[in-house]
């Protein structure tokens, strides 16, 4: 990390500590904010946070290692989390998982060479009535079909600014299922 980058990160962490309070209970919100912006929490950041909250850096490291949404090693700008729990399995998650690997050119647990996407399995995403389900960043996709993967990835590239916007109207995509009541019994 360059000195200038460290200075910027340091200032950001101070701002986060001021926002959430310099207390132990602020640790997770601060770490989640760093994770979101930098896609991982490096040693320098852990030390800074530890100093500001007056705890040992090893404590911070222990917390980072505990939660699956926090990473000590760099991840892609967009995290793709595919549910691997039973209902999505019954709904055919394996085929969708294979197609994601094909369209991204990486396996689960890997990050694309350009650092844009990481691919991971997650446990139940709470969308079991409309699996297979996956999260692309914070965006939820349900009842995903293999043929939709390409479009979903293209939308992610556009929506997350990974490269300049090419398609308009991303949020209104037919593949972006926001209606959590779909399929509910009436």
């Amino acid at each position, binding site marked *: 990390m360059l000195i200038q980058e460290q200075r910027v990160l340091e200032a950001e962490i101070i701002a986060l500590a001021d926002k959430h309070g310099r207390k132990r209970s602020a640790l997770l919100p601060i770490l989640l904010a760093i994770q979101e912006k930098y896609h991982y929490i490096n040693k320098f950041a852990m030390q800074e946070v530890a100093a500001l909250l007056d705890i040992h850096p090893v404590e911070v490291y222990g917390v980072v290692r505990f939660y699956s949404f926090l990473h000590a090693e760099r991840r892609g700008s967009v995290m793709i989390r595919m549910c691997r729990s039973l209902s999505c399995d019954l709904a055919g998650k394996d085929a969708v998982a294979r197609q994601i690997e094909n369209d991204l050119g990486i396996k689960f647990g890997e990050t694309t060479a350009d650092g844009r996407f990481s691919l991971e399995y997650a446990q139940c995403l709470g969308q079991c009535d409309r699996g297979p389900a996956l999260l692309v960043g914070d965006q939820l996709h349900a009842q995903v079909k293999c043929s939709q993967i390409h479009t979903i990835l293209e939308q992610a590239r556009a929506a997350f600014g990974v490269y300049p916007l090419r398609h308009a109207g991303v949020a209104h995509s037919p593949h972006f299922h926001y209606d*959590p009541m779909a399929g*509910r019994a009436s």
Partner: protein
Amino acid sequence: MSTKPQDILLGVDVPIDAGLQRAAGGPTQAIIDEVRASGLRGRGGAGFPTATKWQLAKDATGEAKFVVCNADEGEPGTFKDRVLLTERADLVFEGMALAGRAIGASQGIVYLRGEYRYLRAHLESVLSARRDRRVLGTAILGIPGFDFDIEIHMGAGAYVCGEETALIESLEGHRGEPRNRPPFPVNTGFFGQPTIVNNVETLALAARIVHRGGAWFAGFGTPASRGYKLFSVSGDCEKPGVYELPMGIKVMELLELVGGLHAKAVQVGGASGRCISRAEFDRSLCFEDLATGGAIMVIGPGRDMLRVAKNFLEFFVEESCGQCTPCRAGNVALLEGIELLIAGRCSMAHLHELKSLGETMRLTAKCGLGQSSPQAFLSIVEQFSDEVLGQQPRA
């Protein structure tokens, strides 16, 4: 007075803040008494009587008290809390305010699982609309001294944080490792202060109960399991979704409703629940019989039960916090056992060893995760022994 299930939580015309209007100005004990009369038991799975929990927290002394809404919903197969947070957030927050009034807390916290972050903006906007309507914040409904506000705290991807003491550890900025109980959170909770942790559905129901009265709710269900319950139904059925049904409904009746009568097996209670075969489909879904947080996973004919058991054990191996040996090592050993069964290389003697390991875990694990994790395995090898033994090696 309607008795249609939709009218309790999921009906189109469920009134908002009617419970708050009715009870906010009265004595705080009356809120707890109404909940006690309803017989409401916690909807997060364990079924602890809600009024008892509230009474303990009310009677406890502390500098501050807290109401925590457990929105960590991580049990595989469960999604009813997501539906409530999306469709009935007002009711959940109303329930929290009533709980706060009842126990004397002025702060509420929603612990929202990281996977539901897409719901956060919606929840924040409901909260701010409530502040505008004076049903949240200081002097709620103009009542001096009735101060209660709610903040949302994000989880970060750990199933065990749904366990109430792990949840509190997480709120305090620690690894989500369950604590020994006792002491219980009602005495020594968030920052050592009296804290009630309740499931999303429990809180929403409390709001309805305070409005309609405990007797109304107690009129449904069974003697030990009053009222209605939300069931999250998924898997091999025609109509998956959330169903609001009376406690005590038989598995068979539920399968008929959801178009799953052909099922070979049903996993009741998610990964930590138990698997039942057709022979048990006349059992009832209630605390007296098949207790559940509401997850019903329908497993259709032709499904491989070892694949089902493996899926659950992989879940527990990944989600165990690793604090205690029975759970940390036990789930790995059970998973290896499943792999032996899949390879067709498990002797009956070894299967017996695995079963007794499962029993040991049930008795000696520190928290509910390790105590319940062997259940799916045990029930599957029990019910489907002829299917799981003597498998031919697969290509």
